[in-house]
């Protein structure tokens, strides 16, 4: 029986059948195997990137023996802590091609994984609050159009028609003069992306091992040939790291440093309210971005705590700044109560572009440096990382994203398109 047939497919027919049968026939979406002594590829990190890489390793490259090791639970790190935004509005050709692949994979993902990732292409509006913002918005949209990606510059009135709930009064502290929209951007359910990839990878034979923390690397000469974990030693042909904010910790374990600093990025959600906002709003000047989840919660994302941090809570000082910006932009929502606030540890790189390539140690490969924008990159990050882990050489789309750029000087500086000031 082929791997895909062994997957317990979800469908309307299946739902009806289970409904009539009292929902007793549903099986767990993935197995909980014990680690085997050896794999072809071991991926450290059971977030979106690690799980997606495992899935594409099995599907695109036919690599059979793959394990994903997660120290906590699946999607419990940044994959479950982001604000669910997907977009491909970047400035430079390398990034545009990469993030556009990601958005295209997202567009087919629910069908591909047989798991509803609740993609909602409701558009993302980037606001301009000053004459200078208008110039940078025009430049940004033009760069996207040159790269073949959809973008439309909007007038003040067009933004107002899209987002009537904003502060349009004459005394607005941050008046909106215009903006631009990428209509194909939007949001997807972050947990579903992790679970969907996990279920589809598991169906293709990938071992997903939770509560398994890597404590060291197994070496043969200089080469990494496996990992030491809290559940024993696991040998591997190749080891991939997809651990986002903890990349520096794993790198130190392997004896090298990375051009990465970890910062806490926070977000918060309000109590659910009736639909008031049907697009994603990003205000680079106030450092605030806002959307409304399908449940009705208003999701507010904000700035980084600008000092190195591994605390997944975020500083109250930044919370105050974010809330102040939000209240000014949406005065009608200022009496909302916030239900939850949290932070994810982001792996920020000097040029705000990812690192996908071989590590300085043989046998070890990197998928990191996503900074504040890892969620949108999950499908393409996984797809290209799988190529790297299967072949040992970078995917053509990611040849510019290696570590060598930090001494050749060929940076891909996406700081302006990152959305959040670094």
């Amino acid at each position, binding site marked *: 029986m082929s791997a895909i047939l062994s997957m317990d497919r979800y469908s309307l027919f299946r739902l009806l059948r289970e409904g009539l049968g009292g929902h007793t026939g549903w099986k767990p979406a993935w197995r909980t195997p014990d680690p085997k002594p050896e794999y072809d590829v071991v991926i450290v990190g059971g977030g979106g990137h690690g799980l997606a890489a495992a899935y594409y390793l099995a599907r695109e490259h036919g690599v059979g023996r793959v394990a994903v090791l997660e120290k906590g639970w699946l999607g419990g790190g940044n994959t479950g802590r982001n604000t669910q935004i997907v977009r491909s509005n970047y400035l430079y050709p390398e990034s545009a091609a990469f993030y556009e692949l990601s958005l295209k994979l997202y567009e087919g993902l629910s069908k591909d994984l047989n798991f509803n990732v609740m993609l909602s292409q409701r558009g993302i509006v980037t606001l301009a609050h000053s004459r200078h913002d208008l110039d940078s918005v025009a430049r940004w949209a033009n760069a996207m159009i040159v790269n073949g990606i959809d973008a439309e510059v909007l007038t003040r009135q067009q933004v107002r028609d899209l987002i009537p709930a904003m502060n349009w009064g004459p005394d607005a502290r941050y008046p909106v003069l215009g903006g631009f929209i990428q209509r194909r951007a939007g949001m997807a359910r972050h947990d579903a992306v992790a679970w969907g990839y996990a279920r589809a990878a598991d169906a293709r034979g990938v071992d997903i091992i939770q509560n398994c923390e890597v404590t060291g690397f197994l070496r043969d000469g200089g080469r990494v040939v496996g990992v030491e974990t809290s559940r024993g030693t696991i040998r591997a042909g190749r080891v991939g790291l997809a651990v986002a904010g*903890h990349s*520096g*910790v794993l790198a*130190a374990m392997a004896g090298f*440093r*990375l*051009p*990465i*600093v*970890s910062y806490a990025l926070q977000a918060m959600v309000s109590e659910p309210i009736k639909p008031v906002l049907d697009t994603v709003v990003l205000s680079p000047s106030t450092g605030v971005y806002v959307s409304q989840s399908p449940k009705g919660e208003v999701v507010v994302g904000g700035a980084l705590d*600008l*000092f*190195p*941090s*591994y*605390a997944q809570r975020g*500083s*109250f*000082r930044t919370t105050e700044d974010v809330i102040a910006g939000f209240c000014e932009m949406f005065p009608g929502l200022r009496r909302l109560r916030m239900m939850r606030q949290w932070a994810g540890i982001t792996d920020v790189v*000097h040029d705000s572009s990812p690192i996908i390539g071989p590590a300085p140690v043989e046998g070890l490969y990197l998928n990191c440096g996503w900074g504040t924008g890892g969620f949108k990159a999950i499908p393409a990050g996984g797809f290209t990382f799988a190529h790297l882990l299967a072949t040992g050489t970078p995917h053509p789309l990611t040849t510019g994203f290696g570590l060598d750029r*930090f*001494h*050749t*000087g060929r940076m891909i500086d996406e700081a302006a398109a990152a959305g959040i000031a670094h």
Partner: protein
Amino acid sequence: MMQIPCPWCGPRDEAEFLCGGQTHIARPNLESSDQEWGRYLFERDNPKGLHFERWLHRMGCQQWFNLARDTVTHEIKAVYRMTDPKPEVTE
């Protein structure tokens, strides 16, 4: 929210300060290779735990100083001047 003890002004709110990142980074000589220069410019320790870092009291006395701080608990273990050697601190 941190309260940071400025060596000149005393304890003040985190909002008054700017973090300048890792401290005690020695500049390599000008004949160094591109690789060495790249490491100097971009590679950082980025530890989970004790970190030695520079801070500027931007909204106060505008002086730079060093902190030894835990990056998980944000507990400040030592405060010392820019020219002081790295102090002995236990995690």
